[in-house]
């Protein structure tokens, strides 16, 4: 997903004043961060607000950034913390968005030129199922799954980003995949 060390180098260059380094960094990680937040927030507006806050924190921390860890780990740690702040501000866990009320969350069936209408319908149904299955996951398991899929983090990095022990992160990820397998098989 990413070249090791390149993100850190880009961040260091941005900290030195190279705005184009940030542009490359942003283009590389904006989708993953946005989806990570989008799947855990109640609405698209909230996700956009959190998304902007995360990147502003990155901008603010440019001078103090030290590549002691992988850039994505650092980036998703910021996203995780911002998400927790948002949860705390709500006082309770907000409901998750569904694919039905968010057009952007549903892949465009017409985008696949190889499929016909039936196949496009099957794809849409499959996407709805898996999105629904992910949203049905417990919060900690969903976060671990999203960090792995959107951020490309390893189990160790997930543990580091979420501030839990390695075994805890590993268990969360294993349970999340098991539940998704079960849900998807049941849906067939």
């Amino acid at each position: 997903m990413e070249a090791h060390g390149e993100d850190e180098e880009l961040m260091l260059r941005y900290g030195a004043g190279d705005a184009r380094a940030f542009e490359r960094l942003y283009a590389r990680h904006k989708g993953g961060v946005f989806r990570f937040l989008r799947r855990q927030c109640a609405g698209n507006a909230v996700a956009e607000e959190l998304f902007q806050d995360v990147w502003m924190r990155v901008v603010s921390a440019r001078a103090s950034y030290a590549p002691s860890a992988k850039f994505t780990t650092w980036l998703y740690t910021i996203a995780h913390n911002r998400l927790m702040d948002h949860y705390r501000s709500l006082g309770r866990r907000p409901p998750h968005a569904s694919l039905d009320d968010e057009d952007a969350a549903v892949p465009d069936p017409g985008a696949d030129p190889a499929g016909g209408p039936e196949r496009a319908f099957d794809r849409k149904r499959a996407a709805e199922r898996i999105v629904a299955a992910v949203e049905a996951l417990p919060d900690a398991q969903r976060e671990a799954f999203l960090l792995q899929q959107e951020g490309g983090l390893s189990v160790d990095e997930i543990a580091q980003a979420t501030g839990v022990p390695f075994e805890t992160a590993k268990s969360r990820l294993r349970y999340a995949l098991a539940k998704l397998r079960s849900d998807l098989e049941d849906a067939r």
Partner: protein
Amino acid sequence: MTSRDRRDEAIERAWRDASRDEPPRHLDDAILARAREAVAPRVEEAPSELWPLAHPRSWFMRWRVPLAVAATLVVSATVTLLVYDSGMEEPPPVVTDRPLRKAPPPAPPAPSGAVIEKESAAAPSAQPALSGTVAEKQPASAPPPAPPPAKPSADVVPPAPSATREAQPVERKRAQPEAASTTQPSAESGRAPAPPDVAPGRAGTPEPRRAEEALGASREAPAAAPAPTAAPVPERAPAAAGAVAPTAPRAAPAPMAAPPPPAAPTTAPPVPQAAPRDNAVREKRDESLQAAPGTRARAAALATPEAYVERIRELKRAGREAEARELLEELKRRFPAFELPDDLKLAR
């Protein structure tokens, strides 16, 4: 690869297919703009010549600092000038009051030159006291710390000179045969002539008897001390030393004829035991005392070096060489920067 791994890959692939949403374009632009702005050089860091272009500031913003500095300078200068002017307008302190206050309270009837002479001779009073003179008994009752000599200012010249200057001619007439060849500076040197406004009440009516005593003591000194050069005239000899002072230094070198030390006038015995009782001298002294107003006028007339020069020339024309020399010495001491006329230079 196990079937479980295959199923996981299918889930991940399905997720990637299902989750392709991206942040909206306006959000991208906003974030990138903020990121560029954060690392853009600040306006303050821009070269100074670009400042007006980067930040067109108002007139007040541009000139407030120079205006503040200018206003501060103007106010400071004004206050300084006001303070200076007010200080200049203050009336000059009356200097003549100071020595009079510091001096021991003289006896009301005897503010004569003799008393002043004793004060002026405070410095040499450390020498052994005289015997048989007025000063002989005074040191015992005089205050231990001799009062500091008054400044050699014209303002502080006490009335003593009026009495003693009159006696000077008599003194000189007597001393000329003895010490005409000596060039020892008299105590009169460094003494300013009495200004016209110097305590005329005290100077104009000296008690004759006191003057007699003083003159008697000072006249006795030359006889007892024939080595006048050994008598160092105190450089800080106060102007209050008066005209009698010339005789005092002559008396000073001799241990037996030291000048009378300063003493309170009240302690001075009314009649000195060893004072000479020469009738002729007394007559001359009386004459000189009667001539006090003329002497004061002369002292006032010698306020400038030119007046000295004129007076010296008059004395020389009158054949009074000794007095002319003394006056010349006094002129040189009082006005060291004054350049003597050629005739007086030759006279030296």
